[in-house]
């Protein structure tokens, strides 16, 4: 906007008005298209031809799937035209249909912004991990996945001068860090290009070397003198604690610290840094699990209701004075469906659990039928209590 309005003298009057006219015109055309396409939207038809076009819901096309270790793979994705880019260290939420059901997971972007415009994530198949196993073993190039814009504040400061860095990574917690490092030290055919003189120490924790994603990348960065790499293979060397860490990195306190890994490690680190009065930037790559139980509570906007395990949430909420949508009350009409943002419910007809983990469900939560669902934990439902 600013560029256009600075010197109007450079433009003929007609040219100045043109963008507005064009916008008005395109809005008109779109309006006509909507009238022609109703009851569908024009986008429904356009998506058949180009799901990555500007204006479409954000999606991406899988370009390449490269195995990293026995159970990890890097997935390169061409994002839709409206992808806003990202800062190394950030993550992206990916929506993928596994066995017909849409699931969302967050993954760190493992490259800095690339010239070819692709983004990449590296996924480790965890045991019982429906989504990660699907991504690593079954995803093929050409497949369309759903995306959200990059997010997260696990990023380096914009001005790197005067900082010494420590990066503690455990398991696949290496992924956001590798994104940062690749951006700091681009690799060409001739090897690592060290275009910034930085003091970076990476402490990498993993069960063993073959289990380590990106270990070769880290090692070559270390060989080129770009980073100092300290590895700790817990399978043979035992677990790491704060004392060992301070031993391995004597100038720990002088370093701006980043850590990414499982909750246990991060909690210990955080406690130590808090006690020392030092800042620590963390990123947890596995989100907290939802504890399931018999019965629980249901939080509506403005009111929380106790809900026993043998009573439909619909009944419990109504008895507590919440105005609920309802219909057949036997699970067939879908008139009582509300979005569960978080929590777990049990289908009273067959005992099946439906779980909504924050971060792992779609942007609008998991829709549940309240007339046949009983609370199986602490649930949050997006519905006003009055």
């Amino acid at each position, binding site marked *: 906007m600013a560029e256009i309005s600075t010197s109007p003298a450079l433009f003929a009057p007609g040219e100045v008005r043109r963008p507005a006219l064009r916008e008005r015109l395109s809005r008109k055309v779109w309006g*006509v298209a909507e*009238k*022609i396409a*109703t*009851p*569908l939207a024009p986008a*429904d*038809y356009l998506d*058949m031809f180009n799901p990555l076009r500007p204006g479409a819901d954000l999606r991406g096309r899988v370009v390449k799937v490269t195995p990293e270790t026995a159970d990890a793979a890097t997935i390169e994705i061409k994002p839709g035209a409206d992808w806003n880019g990202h800062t190394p260290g950030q993550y992206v939420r990916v929506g993928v*249909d596994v*066995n*017909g*059901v*849409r*699931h969302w997971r967050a993954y760190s972007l493992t490259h800095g912004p690339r010239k070819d415009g692709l983004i990449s994530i590296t996924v480790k198949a965890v045991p019982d991990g429906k989504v990660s196993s699907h991504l690593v073993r079954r995803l093929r190039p050409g497949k369309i996945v759903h995306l959200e814009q990059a997010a997260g504040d696990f990023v380096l400061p914009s001005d790197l001068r005067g900082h010494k860095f420590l990066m503690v990574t455990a398991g696949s917690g290496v992924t956001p860090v590798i994104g940062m490092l690749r951006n700091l030290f681009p690799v060409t055919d001739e090897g690592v290009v060290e275009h910034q003189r930085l003091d970076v120490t990476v402490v990498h924790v993993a069960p063993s070397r073959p289990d380590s994603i990106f270990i070769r990348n880290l090692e070559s960065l270390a060989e080129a003198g770009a980073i100092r790499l300290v590895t700790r293979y817990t399978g043979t060397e035992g677990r790491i604690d704060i004392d060992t860490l301070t031993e391995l990195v004597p100038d720990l306190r002088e370093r701006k610290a980043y850590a990414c890994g499982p909750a246990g490690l991060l909690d210990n680190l955080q406690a130590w840094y808090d006690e020392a009065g030092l800042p620590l930037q963390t990123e947890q790559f596995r989100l907290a699990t939802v504890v399931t139980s018999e019965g629980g509570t249901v939080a509506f906007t403005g009111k929380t209701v106790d809900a026993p395990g043998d009573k439909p949430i619909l009944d419990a909420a109504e008895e507590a004075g919440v105005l609920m949508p309802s*219909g*057949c009350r*036997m*699970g*067939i*009409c*879908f*008139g009582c*469906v509300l979005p569960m943002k978080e929590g777990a419910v049990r289908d009273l*007809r*067959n005992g*099946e659990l439906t779980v909504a983990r924050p971060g792992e*469900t*779609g942007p*609008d939560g*998991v*829709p549940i*039928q309240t007339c046949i669902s009983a609370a199986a934990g602490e649930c949050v439902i997006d519905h006003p209590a009055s």
Partner: protein
Amino acid sequence: MTIAPDAPAYTGPIAHLTRDDIEQLGRELDAIRQEVIDTRGERDAAYIHKVIKVQRSLELGSRAVLLASIFPPAFVVGTVGLSIAKILDNMEIGHNIMHGQWDWMRDPKIHSTVWEWDNASTSEGWKHSHNELHHTYTNIVGKDNDLGWGIMRVDEEQRWTPSSLFQPAMNFINMCIFEYGIAAYDLELGRVIRQKKKGRRPTAEWQMAAKRTVAKIRRQAFKDYVAHPLVSMVTLSGPTTLLANVIANFTRNVWTHSVIMCGHFPEGVETFELKDIPENETRGEWYVRQMLGSANISGSKFLHVMSGNLSHQIEHHIFPDLPSNRYAEIAPKVRALFDKYDLNYHTAPMPQQVASAWHKVVRLSLPNGFLESTNVRNAPKQVVKLVKAVRGDTRTRRRLLKEFEAAGAASVGKAI
């Protein structure tokens, strides 16, 4: 009516079943349902994605061909394509998605809460009257609006009045303009008009719903009868495009009306009186009502898809929320249960079911027993009597109706 502890809730075709039988039957049906849910997955998702893709391609392609509809072959191809596209949209896609059959995919675009269909009725209004009322109160006279759409006599126990004579004509008109018929009955227009006559104003909620329906009808009509014909004017194909849209909507109306008539109207399908339904109807009893109150259409795969798998109306009514592509698969198991419990699995080819449904509409437009007791010889006398019943006062009418009923029963007895 008092019910013996071991007797079923209603008599007739299930008199031979005990309450335990009915609950056992319910459990066996639950097991079939669970089996489908346990195996629901990628294959099913691929199916609905494919049907949606085919429908959209067909609609786009047909509309493109209609741009040249001034040439007769293009007109024919485009009209046929558009008719099929509209039928697919309403039946296999719209009806079933709005039933929540595909909600398990958690796809925010293919979900009962957001789907809108190519029909005058709003998805919201339809979901209330269809999913909530019709599927819950299936075939209960007076509760289920689908049963005769509130304008027809569909059960012998409903009182015959002279206006019943118009119901074949009414049904025919409703068939031709079915999408508007559905919109009207989703709004319960008849009830609201009756109340208005009594001086009661419709609720604010109803007025909102009516407003939304009018807006939807306007959008739909503008698209089919103004926008697309206007675009076709470029090739002078405007009038033919308009005609094609009229025919496609008409075809869709006749087809959907016929399929739906086959679901609950054929002779031999049970209807129920509210007084016979126990207050706390068990799941087993509800299942039985669905089993006896529905009829299937036998035929090809194409027919099943075009009917939105409502050709498996029995399976659909027992399990309204299972993906429609599974109905054909579970049909043999369901049928085996009908056999096991000695119930009548009502199925026949489409022409037969349509004829049977129309037969019932005509039969019930006349007093009980009239059709059965009328033959070529006594026809003139019967008609004179019928005119008397129409014109006469209440007492005369009541007497004549009784005579018809007795004559009907007598002639049926003779035939046996």
